[in-house]
């Protein structure tokens, strides 16, 4: 079982918040001693999900948790909004599917950049995406 060493949340409501979320994730992954590639993957995934929170979720929060397992450290991020939600999750998890005029790589792409990815969404109530990346796990 992993325990939470530190946790907090920051607002994700504007484009500027997306940049701030990115910088916060960069700092945390640096402190955890992630390799440069792993830092960049986590920061990029956070950027995609934070943008989704702003554009599709109409704003929300990024909760973060620094995790400590018996033999490893990691970072878990949860992007939560109270937006319109996603009606068809399996469709939303298809490469190239988009409603936002983007490339449709945000959700599926960020899933490939992390070790663990969970998405829950209730139409009319919001969406919650949780990603985890462990130090040194490919």
């Amino acid at each position, binding site marked *: 079982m992993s325990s939470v060493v530190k946790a907090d949340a920051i607002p994700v409501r504007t*484009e*500027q918040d*997306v*940049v701030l979320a*990115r*910088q916060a994730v*960069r700092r945390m992954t640096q402190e955890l001693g992630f390799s*440069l*590639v792993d*830092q*960049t*993957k986590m*920061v*990029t995934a956070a*950027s*995609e999900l934070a*943008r989704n929170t702003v554009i599709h979720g109409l704003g929300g929060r990024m909760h973060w948790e620094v995790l400590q397992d018996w033999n490893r450290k990691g970072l878990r991020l949860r992007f939560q909004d109270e937006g319109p939600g996603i009606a068809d999750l399996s469709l939303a998890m298809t*490469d190239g599917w988009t409603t936002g005029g*983007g*490339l449709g*790589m*945000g959700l*599926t*792409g*960020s899933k*490939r*950049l992390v070790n663990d990815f969970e998405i829950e969404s209730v139409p009319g109530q919001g969406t919650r995406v949780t990603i985890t990346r462990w130090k040194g796990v490919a």
Partner: protein
Amino acid sequence: MAERIPILKMGEFLLVTIQVDLHDQMAMQLQEDLTSAIERTSAKGVLLDISALEMVDSFIGRMIANISSISGILDARTVVVGMRPQVAITLVELGLSLPGVETALDVDRGMDRLRAAIEGGRLDVVGCQG
């Protein structure tokens, strides 16, 4: 938010160095500014230096691809230089391989590429006349 990325003119080329953590509006603004700068200066090439970018997500990746195709339509060649290795690895895993975007390792090589392309273009024209 009136922050803008400067566009420098160097002879027949435009040089853009992105030195800040881009938010989406700035990326869109750069795309517009660069398009009008190509038109205004009749530039033949654009050198886009992204060596300071610590990450490129799908939005910024799309901006890079757009700049490259728009400049192509306006008869200017774009070369993207200085992408960090970790950024390249992440982009590919994200699912963006930026097809059609020309890249070079650094500014010098990018400049060489642009000059060669322009010389090549001129020779083609001479050839047609002969």
